């Protein structure tokens, strides 16, 4: 048997080390994937969300009654119970509930995207800077987040819609501006712990700019808790948005937004139960799915 000369391996890629390292193990990605897949609930949640996303993207083509999105009166089929033609029945003005629920998916996902988009874009960089620079900046930012904590998002949103007129967009932007604190706090705490890591010191000693250190060195290493928070907050965002619409401060009729649909059809409970129930169920399923995904991510990351 030949001696395996390790130093001879400079040119040839297959050195002794490489040979010994040859994965009898699954590749890193597949291993991580299989670990995530072990959590049945999280997988279920993810699948539901993916399905929802698909529906939201394809709805103009797959909705059975695309015209029912907006105003459309159909006195013949007012409040028709679920049937083969209208799987979820029709609402109080004869519109197909299924179609409207499908369109509602767009609204809900868009809501989540806007709120979180603003919250993350504001919160993460601010938290990063606060943690990285420390000193006065950190104090200011932390006081700001404390201040914003005192404001319940829903109340703020209501107040804004009173001022600016009811519009889901306004409300969502307002909520985004309140929710940035959660992400800022996570980013801040994580940055504090990571900034003493040797690889950060290395980057700085090499003359890397602060921007590089924060976003290319630290940020990738703090993304896990941020993702978890993102998933969990998405569910909450949908809930808040639909609640606003339900209260009349968000989407106005005839917008096929779930909360709005529940509100306008609730007068017809319990006989015309389908018109309120199905949108409500859609909200429920969506929020729970986001939560399951968030929990799953948290369990997954905590094992690392």
């Amino acid at each position: 048997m030949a001696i395996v000369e390790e130093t001879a391996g400079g040119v040839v890629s297959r050195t002794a080390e490489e040979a010994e390292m040859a994965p009898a193990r699954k590749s890193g990605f597949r291993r991580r994937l299989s670990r995530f897949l072990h959590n049945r609930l999280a997988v279920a949640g993810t699948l539901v969300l993916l399905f929802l996303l698909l529906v939201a993207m394809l709805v103009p083509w797959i909705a059975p009654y695309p015209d029912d999105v907006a105003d459309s009166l159909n006195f013949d089929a007012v409040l028709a119970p679920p049937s083969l033609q209208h799987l979820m029945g029709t609402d109080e003005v004869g519109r197909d509930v299924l179609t409207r629920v499908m369109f509602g998916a767009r609204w809900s996902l868009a809501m989540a995207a806007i709120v979180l988009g603003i919250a993350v874009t504001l919160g993460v960089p601010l938290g990063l800077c606060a943690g990285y620079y420390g000193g006065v900046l950190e104090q200011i930012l932390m006081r700001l987040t404390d201040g914003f904590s005192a404001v319940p998002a829903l109340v703020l949103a209501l107040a804004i819609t009173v001022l600016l007129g009811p519009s889901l967009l306004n409300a969502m932007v307002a909520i985004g501006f309140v929710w940035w604190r959660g992400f800022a706090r996570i980013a801040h705490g994580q940055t504090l712990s990571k900034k003493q890591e040797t690889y950060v010191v290395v980057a700085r000693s090499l003359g890397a700019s602060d921007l590089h250190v924060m976003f290319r060195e630290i940020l990738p290493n703090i993304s896990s808790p941020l993702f978890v928070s993102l998933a969990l907050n998405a569910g909450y965002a949908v809930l808040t948005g639909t609640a606003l619409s339900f209260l009349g401060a968000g989407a106005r009729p005839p917008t096929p937004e779930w909360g709005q649909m529940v509100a306008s059809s609730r007068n017809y409970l319990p006989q015309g139960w389908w018109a309120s129930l199905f949108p409500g169920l859609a909200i429920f399923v969506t929020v729970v799915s986001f939560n399951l995904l968030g929990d799953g991510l948290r369990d997954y990351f905590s094992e690392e």
Partner: protein
Amino acid sequence: MAEPVVRLTSLRVDFHTADGVEQVIRDVTLRIDPGEIVGLVGESGCGKSVTAKLLLGILPMPPARLKNGTVEMFGRDLAMLGAVERDTLKKHVAYVPQDPSAVLNPSFTIASQMIDMIVWYESDRRLLEYFRRRHSKRHVARAHDFAAELLGKVQIADPDDVLRRYPVQLSGGMRQRVLLAMALSGRPKLMIADEPTTALDVTVQKRTIDLLKDLAQREHLAGLYITHDLGVAREICARTYVMYAGTTVENGPTAELLDRPLHPYTRGLVEAIPSLAGGLPHAIAGQVPDYLSPPPGCRFAPRCGEARDLCRAVPESVIREGRREVSCWLYERETVA
């Protein structure tokens, strides 16, 4: 001859992981006699910590599975004992870990933690009894005195002062000594030390080693001293086992083992340590085998300069010169002249 305190025979332990079965321990045979400190040396990943955990009974047995071999402690085969009996045996074993902060709770004084341990041992590890005694002034006072006595045994000059302190107020060497004192509180017969001096400065290490030697002698302790530092093994251990990739490949009186190594791995290990006379040390070519698919015969063969075809079969363990044992095809059983 009194029976050995520990005897491991032809141990084989597999780990069932998500990637497959890792054959972590292939063949470990080890003996510790009463009153002797035995060294277990090897590099990272060789399985020495797994062996220690097995002895301590803290190896998680679902992923790990004992495939072969026996573990005997104080003359009893552990596999034959029930859980209660095994627990009773464990009382006589003390564990000294590498990192004191893993054992010392930063929120409590040394006195509080030592008294906890002493009373726990006194109550025979029964919970109700422990609570009763822990709250009895008389017992606590007695335990306090015993704690001071133990601290004196580890050569701490002012035990009462140390007892009053919190772990964070003590230096690393001091903490390690407190740990040793705590290990003694159950009046153990066997001490298992896992790299206890690795994190210490060399001058502190020297004092700790001298202390350990002294303690073992005075308290008639047997010990298993796990380390990767051959020099420390030479200082402390009467006999040493060399472990590679889950197998004890060689053992013998430590000084002899290091001055005249028999197994090619031992030789490589010694030559890899820089000599104080100068010159670059020699590396051992190659890498530790993958436990998922280890080489069929001698696990060191792929890296061994003297490997032959014969090495595809697992070598037997052979006794040389009466006191030394080696598992290598280079050596044949000595025939009695």
